[in-house]
């Protein structure tokens, strides 16, 4: 195992899959000669050339649609969104074409497409550039969506996504690119889509999170243990759709309490879905109502100190957990 960054892990996944399968290519704005706006594809153009790393003009509907068409022909395009916020320009292609072609054709057509790139707020770039659309993507049957929170998951999920025969959205987190972690060297290391991961074991409370919120949850769990002797179990969803319901249920049955943390907006959010799951499957096991933490329900704020309040941070998670356990703060 090597210790590498989240960014490097994704790059390794891309490079390995490009080498493994000649159908794999990467397309997007500034992915080739510029080496990627966030340097995720740095060096890949020099290594693999114009055919496998393709710089596209600013025409998201065009090149996402192209990705879908070429995937119908059996290629395996990996389309980079410079920011996930720009996927909306191609929303019609993604939801009217990518999500439904297999269904509408009675299973005759597959769309082995990956759409990947940085999502989430926290970088003070205002409302148009800070979207976290995993709940929207997950709303469309036919689409899959994953949100890795560690370098190992980033690599494993990316490889699984590229090998998957359905359209998969891989939402990376801009603020995680520099994070380091251990990543298996095995070229066939994958993290299966639809498998959650217990990132920390505990008995008093379950926190369900994904993406950057997992790190916030782990930070909170550490402090709760050290200062309050509360042992939190942290379930990292990794896949938003398909969702690993059994891992969530097992954990909540064990701890009797569920706190759902997400950077999405709350309305019609992922927390609502999971909250429903828990009341349906774990009602008799609950010692407290399910609690939810999300981003504050407004478009992303520009001003740095205010945006920080908008997103779930560890102190908020700690406060909420203590309240759920009736511990005096």
């Amino acid at each position, binding site marked *: 195992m090597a210790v590498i960054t989240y960014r490097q892990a994704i790059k390794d996944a891309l490079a390995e899959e490009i080498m493994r399968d000649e159908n794999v290519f990467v397309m997007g704005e500034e992915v080739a000669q510029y080496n990627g706006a966030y340097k995720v594809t740095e060096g890949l153009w020099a290594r693999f050339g114009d055919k496998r790393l393709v710089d596209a003009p600013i025409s998201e509907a065009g090149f996402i649609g192209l990705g879908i068409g070429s995937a119908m022909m059996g290629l395996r395009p990996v389309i980079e969104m410079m920011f996930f916020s720009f996927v909306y320009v191609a929303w019609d292609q993604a939801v009217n074409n990518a999500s439904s072609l297999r269904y509408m054709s009675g299973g005759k057509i597959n769309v082995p497409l990956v759409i990947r790139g940085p999502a989430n707020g926290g970088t003070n770039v205002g*409302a148009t550039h800070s979207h976290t659309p995993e709940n929207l993507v997950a709303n469309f049957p036919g689409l899959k969506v994953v949100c890795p929170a560690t370098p190992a998951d980033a690599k494993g999920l990316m490889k699984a996504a590229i090998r998957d025969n359905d359209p998969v959205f891989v939402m990376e987190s801009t603020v995680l690119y520099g994070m380091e972690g251990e990543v298996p060297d095995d070229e066939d290391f994958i993290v299966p889509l639809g498998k959650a991961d217990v990132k920390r074991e505990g008995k008093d409370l379950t926190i369900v999170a994904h993406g950057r919120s997992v790190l916030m949850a782990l930070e909170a769990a550490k402090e709760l243990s050290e200062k309050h002797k509360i042992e939190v179990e942290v379930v990292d969803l990794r896949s938003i759709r398909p969702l690993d319901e059994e891992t969530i249920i097992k954990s909540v049955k064990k701890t009797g309490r569920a706190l759902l943390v997400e950077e999405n907006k709350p309305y019609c959010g992922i927390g609502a879905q999971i909250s429903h799951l828990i009341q349906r499957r774990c009602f008799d096991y609950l010692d407290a109502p399910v609690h939810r933490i999300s981003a504050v329900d*407004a478009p992303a*704020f520009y001003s*740095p*100190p*205010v945006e920080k309040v908008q997103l779930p941070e560890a102190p908020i998670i700690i406060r909420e957990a203590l309240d759920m356990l009736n511990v005096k703060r």
Partner: protein
Amino acid sequence: MSTETKDQAAQAKQDLFAHAKAPINQKLTAEQKIKLYTDMVRIRKFEQAALQSYQKGKMGGFLHLYIGQEATAIGTISLTEENDHIITAYRDHGHALAVGMTMNECMAELFGKFTGCSKGKGGSMHYFAPEKRYWGGHGIVGGQTPLGLGIAYALKYRGLKGCCLCYLGDGAINQGAFHESLNLASLWSIPVIYIIENNRYSMGTSQARSSAYPEAGLASRAEGYNMEWDRIDGSNLYEIRAKVHVAMERARNESRPMILEIDTYRYYGHSIADANHKKYRTKEEIEDYQNNKDPISVYQQILVAEGVLDEDKIKDIDSAAKEEAKASVDFAENSPYPPAQELLTDVYWTTDNPGQHSNQGRMFFNDRLPWDDEYQA
């Protein structure tokens, strides 16, 4: 100097003044000419101050500088009349100052302060001043082009004699939204003028790598839509005013759209975070533009030749603009950040009548807000 290069030099000099005689420029008083010059200098000084503040870590997010392109904003916006409207992309500081937004409100917005033009909610890419008929900076490439169409549509709908100046970059012409806008603009005869500020690059991608058939001129896309187009030297304020005036008159009087491509250049990277910009452009290319086509120097040269400006006056204008920019940094620095409660204002339309409020989405932290007393305690 060979005769040939002498001729070329004479030709170039002539070109510099070629548009001074355009009626719209001839009407300018010395005072107005100096104001145009001053406004360009103000944009530059504002942005230099912003750059310095950014480098000191005083602001977050993006900073897309307009330096090198000043003549476009000033040249075009100086032509607007009471029914003319303006909308642009994220490289919006120049247009904002040109419509008369103050340096203070603009700088404070960059700093994320409550006194900023968007109360600290928008940042560099999202300046707005609808009361000045300035419908803002927009962050999604090409996203403003149908909006500009809609603004002009509203003018026509109301029977007003005006037009909308809609700015976009050379990269934005490849967005579907732009092409849909062109078709509708021509089909329905909408008084919108698309101004392509062609600074030759979209981020690190040159036109040759992003637009098919760049030799034809990007504005020639208009032909497929039966729309008029023209190309303009973006370093020459008089030329910009002369040609854009023609387009605006046509839009106002005949309600016809047009595409104008203004050849210009940005001195800095795509944004301040663009560490690559020395790789995709050569030093010579940048210096050539700075030395020979800088819009402020070019106009300065013209005004000196016309006897409108002299050394002293130039220095005065320079230092006044610098002072003003510096004061705006002080203003921004001494302004408060927005209170956290501002997160929830302006999400929906509200009125003084609580029964009519549509601010309904208040659901987070289990209906608690991060700043609630009970929660903070």
